[in-house]
């Protein structure tokens, strides 16, 4: 979403879903995984909205939806592309919105060539590097900077592959040089889109997704009918869009569609990303991610080593809010290195470690397998159950020197060395594992102060209710005291590499209580920042590049506004409108519905009375409305940037996407996505069929790691291609949470879903002799697991080009610890990743299924050897 709109967060907030006239839930089983958020969907339904659920399985969401479309796992882009095509062919787009607020009218350079001409690839493909160069995707006459919004999702791989070492030059004055507002020019984005998606006809969609044309048309029509001036449609997605090798491009498809329909920045519209963990949004905003610094600033690259000024030039834009990069990074460095950071020493910029490539989670695990990674912290994460190919993870952990596990109870990650399928089968032996393991009991959220950032970018403070017992401690305590200890141990020893980075660090939060718990409030204040006088900053527009301000995360600047912890705001809902601006604090600047300038027409008037939200108040000469305007408050709608305008001044009064260089919503992404400027249907990495849309089978840019312990199932074209004839898809249940570490330890939840099971259609059950309630073994080249069989009509075989395709559904909550135990679905999956964000493909791979339980002990080892050798899937190291 960052690439399309400018920020990597949900564009709307959950309460606003009630205002939608049509809701497309796709890539999400919202009723099951976000039941309380789903109340707003039900509100919308009861107000007359059409609820559409597109999902391979008939779930509890489908049960209450008006329309359920059971598409084949991994065919999302084909489906959405079909709707895009439907909109374009029938000219159902919201033309006034599209012309003014998106880059539809911008001309793309002549060098650009589409997948239509290149058999499923775009121009710029470099075969031996497995990646694209972006040069040919640029706006005609200039280059736009791709550094928009969610920078985690961009550039990384291309950069590490060295394909685009030179940053593109920056857009001048925020206006693309060549545009055709009639949208007729063959090289304008609108026409390119039209040609690119022309292939996605209803018939093609039906054949690719395994659905009927009628179902497809019903959905397309519902969305079109419920979009425009008077009506808006919203979309909700979750990890069933991201858990694909084409994850980012699926979301891009949704963004394109919502821009064409004019649904972004408007009430009842938008795209709601539904995130699965209490602070998963927060953990990317303030990232425990390798490639980012707080506020989506890129970690510096070794390849681009240079002074701070160079970093600012490389990473910032000239126009739009990224033009203020200098103030963001300087304030961050000041927050971290305090008085040690001065203009003279480049604010200690050199003390930041540099990246040399992809250091993402799966890379680290492979590094562990290879022996390069020796120490590991697993903090509230249970990789032995929760990660794809968890078997590889467990085996890799046996190569560590030391492992620290912080959790509430002993997880499968903590116990891998004495209790795991590998120990059971003899592949690992306890006495032969040299890993030193520290299990550190963690404090729960009731035992500490702190803030979570929820799925709608809202920071909410939780107050400590009781002290943690025994050795249980918060992460705040653990990292603060670990840092202090390390500092003490190093003392004045200057032989330690880069000792200054540790010594200069501001690390002096005040502690409280008998446990010496560092003050979370203190930390939040540092995140929000203060000025030269030490007074809390009220917003990121106050940040300075001269070192006079400190701010730990610029997008959170203002969360400590007026010296008040704004995240702890709790004005009851009854006392405010549905936006609830005084409940918690939403980044950025307490804006709840992003790009809300688009809720008004170019002149600043509401598109319609029904969809009024933010508008230009001529009398007061400022933007007014129900929410904080996501626009400069006093910038007139008719503002035209003067020549040479920089930063936000370069954004026109009619351009709502203020984080983008040009202030426009990007239908076509000229820079920033490594696997193409437009979404394209590729088959999942493991698929039982050939790509019906293009000759190119799967995402050419996907990250694959063919190696020992990570074999791929043979595809249909290879020998033994029929060994794994079924589609495997994994998911969550309402009653459990991810790896089960927080729910299989709870009696009242364990009883609700006590056993690992798999869901199959009656047809597949008959085909394979599976009996309801009995056992089945699910097999891939990675491993085999057993599960109770649930034969259900909620799964249907798909008909594709005369071929019948069956899907096996497995929840992934079980492991060997806890009150209820079972085999782990993630053991089955390969490590194969989306090239943009390094997320694995969980939702669509292949498998086989057999009746009965799996073999035990050594017999299991031999069983798997045979499976692999039969499939020719022995990958030697």
């Amino acid at each position, binding site marked *: 979403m960052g690439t399309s709109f400018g920020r990597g967060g949900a564009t709307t907030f959950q309460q606003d879903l009630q205002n939608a006239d049509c809701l497309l839930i796709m890539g999400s089983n919202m*009723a099951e995984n976000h039941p309380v958020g789903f*109340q707003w969907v039900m509100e919308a339904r009861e107000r007359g909205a059409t609820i559409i659920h597109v999902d391979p399985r*008939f779930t*509890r969401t489908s049960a*209450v939806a008006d329309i359920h479309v059971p598409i084949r796992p991994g065919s999302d882009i084909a489906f959405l592309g079909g709707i895009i095509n439907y909109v374009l062919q029938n000219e159902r787009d919201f033309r006034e919105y599209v012309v003014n607020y998106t880059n539809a009218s911008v001309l793309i350079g002549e060098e650009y060539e589409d997948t239509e001409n290149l058999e499923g690839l775009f121009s710029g493909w470099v075969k031996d590097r497995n990646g694209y160069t972006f040069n040919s995707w640029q706006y005609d006459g200039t280059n736009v900077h791709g550094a928009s919004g969610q920078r985690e999702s961009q550039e990384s791989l291309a950069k590490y592959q060295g394909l685009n070492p030179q940053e593109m030059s920056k857009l001048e004055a925020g206006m693309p040089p060549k545009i055709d507002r009639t949208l007729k020019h063959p090289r304008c984005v609108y026409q390119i889109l039209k040609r690119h998606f022309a292939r996605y006809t209803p018939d093609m969609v039906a054949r690719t997704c395994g659905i009927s044309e009628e179902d497809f048309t019903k959905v397309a029509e519902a969305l079109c009918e419920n979009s425009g001036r008077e009506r808006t449609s919203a979309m909700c997605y979750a990890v069933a869009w991201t858990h694909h090798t084409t994850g980012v491009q699926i979301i891009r498809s949704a963004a394109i569609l919502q821009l064409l329909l004019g649904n972004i920045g408007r009430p009842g519209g938008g795209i709601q990303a539904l995130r699965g963990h209490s602070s998963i949004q927060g953990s990317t905003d303030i990232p425990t991610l390798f490639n980012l610094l707080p506020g989506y600033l890129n970690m510096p690259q070794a390849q681009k080593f240079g002074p701070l000024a160079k970093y600012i030039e490389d990473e910032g834009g000239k126009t739009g809010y990224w033009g203020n990069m200098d103030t963001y990074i300087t304030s961050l460095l000041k927050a971290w290195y305090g008085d040690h950071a001065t203009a003279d020493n480049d604010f200690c910029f050199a003390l930041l470690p540099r990246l040399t490539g992809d250091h993402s989670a799966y890379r680290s695990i492979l590094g562990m397998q290879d022996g390069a990674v020796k120490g590991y912290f697993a903090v509230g994460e249970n990789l032995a159950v929760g990660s794809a190919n968890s078997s590889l993870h467990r085996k890799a952990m046996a190569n560590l020197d030391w492992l620290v596990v912080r959790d509430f109870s002993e997880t499968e990650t903590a116990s891998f060395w004495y209790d795991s399928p590998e120990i059971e089968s003899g592949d690992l032996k306890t006495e032969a594992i040299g890993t030193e393991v520290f299990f550190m009991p963690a404090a729960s959220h009731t035992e500490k102060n702190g803030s979570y950032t929820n799925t709608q970018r809202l920071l909410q403070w939780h107050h400590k209710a009781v002290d943690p017992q025994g050795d249980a401690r918060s992460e705040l305590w653990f990292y603060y005291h670990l840092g202090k200890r390390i500092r003490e141990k190093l003392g004045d020893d200057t032989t330690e590499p880069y000792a200054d980075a540790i010594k200069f660090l501001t690390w002096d939060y005040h502690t409280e209580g008998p446990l010496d718990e560092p003050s979370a409030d203190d930390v939040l204040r540092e995140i929000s920042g203060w000025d030269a006088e030490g007074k809390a900053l009220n917003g990121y527009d106050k940040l300075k590049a001269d070192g006079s301000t400190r701010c730990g995360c610029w997008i959170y600047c203002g969360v400590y506004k007026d010296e008040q912890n704004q995240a702890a705001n709790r004005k009851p809902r009854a006392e405010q409108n549905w936006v609830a601006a005084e409940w918690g604090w939403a980044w950025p600047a307490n804006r709840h519905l992003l790009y809300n300038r688009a809720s008004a027409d170019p002149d600043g008037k509401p598109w319609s009375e029904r969809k009024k939200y933010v508008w230009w108040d001529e009398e007061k000469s400022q933007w007014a409305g129900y929410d904080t305007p996501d626009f400069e408050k006093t910038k007139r709608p008719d503002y035209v940037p003067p020549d040479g305008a920089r930063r936000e001044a370069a954004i026109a009064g009619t351009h709502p996407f203020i984080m983008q260089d040009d202030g426009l919503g990007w239908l076509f992404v000229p820079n920033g996505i490594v696997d193409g400027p437009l979404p394209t249907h590729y088959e999942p990495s493991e698929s039982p069929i050939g790509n019906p849309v293009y000759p190119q089978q799967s995402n050419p840019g996907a990250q694959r790691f063919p190696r020992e312990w990570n074999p791929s199932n043979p595809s249909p074209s290879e020998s033994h291609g029929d060994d794994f004839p079924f589609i495997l898809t994994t998911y969550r249940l309402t009653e459990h949470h991810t790896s089960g570490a927080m729910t299989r330890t709870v009696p009242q939840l*364990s*009883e609700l879903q006590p*056993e690992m099971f798999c869901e199959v259609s009656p047809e597949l059950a008959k085909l394979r002799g599976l009996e309801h309630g009995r056992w089945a073994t699910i097999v891939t080249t990675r491993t085999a697991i057993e599960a109770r069989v649930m034969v259900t*009509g*909620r799964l249907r075989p798909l008909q594709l080009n005369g071929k019948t395709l069956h899907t096996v559904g497995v929840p992934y909550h079980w492991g060997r610890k806890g009150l209820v135990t079972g085999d782990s679905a993630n053991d089955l999956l390969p490590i194969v990743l989306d090239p943009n964000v390094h997320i694995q493909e969980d939702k669509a791979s292949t498998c086989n299924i057999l009746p009965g339980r799996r073999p035990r002990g050594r017999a299991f080892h031999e069983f798997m050897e045979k499976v692999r050798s039969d499939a020719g899937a022995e990958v030697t190291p």
Partner: protein
Amino acid sequence: MSTFIDLTGAAAQSATYGADEQQRMGFFTDTTLCIGCKACEVACKEWNELPEDGYEFTGWSYDNTRELNGNTWRHVTFVEQFSGRSAGTGRWLMESDVCKHCTHAGCLDVCPTGAIMRSEFGTVVIQQDVCNGCGYCIVGCPFGVIGLKEAEGTTGKCTLCYDRLKAGEEPACAKACPTDSIQFGAVDELRERAEKRLEAVQGRFDGAQLYGTDTGDGVGGTGSMFLLLDKPEVYGLPPDPIVPTKDLPQMWRAAGVGAALLVAACVAAAVRA
């Protein structure tokens, strides 16, 4: 006989509280809004401090709780209707079942200890400190709601969160319900709401029907009402429940006849000798 019935009804029973009598409270569970999340089950167990009921996979769709009983006072039923239906017409019905808090409550009538009482809110509550676990209420209930609490040796069922009601709070399940499928309120008002809701959803949902709203039925209507999407028995509910005490006078008469026959037989046996 009608006098007898009147005395056993909710109104007469709550009236025993005199000035402390409150409006009769109940539930309206609208299954058209249920997403089968089971929050009600858990919220209920949390508030009422009920233990888990065993970790057993049933294969009854997503229902692993099976039934209402002594330690499960809310129970979500799952009904899959796909076989024999064409694509796109399959249904997955979910319903959160609970004690009906009948107007004429069988359990209350038959309880021999007075452990079961009609509260001032018109609800039916088992007093755990009084119950001796005779188990009569289990069979006295025409809805199969009550069960034994193994560890305590008493029986248990929904109290409509009597303790919360006293504190002015709504029952835990209704509060937790994410989609407002479980609605709490005054019974008269809920009954009206249910009628309106049925009208509103006719045509939108096949098979929509009310359950428990008919105050003339065999239990005099219930305090927990439902909007169902199929026949009650599909959800495991009795289609025509009758409070067993409806025919109690007849039963005592029959016992009188039996006793008379016994005496007659005795006399006959003795006299002829």
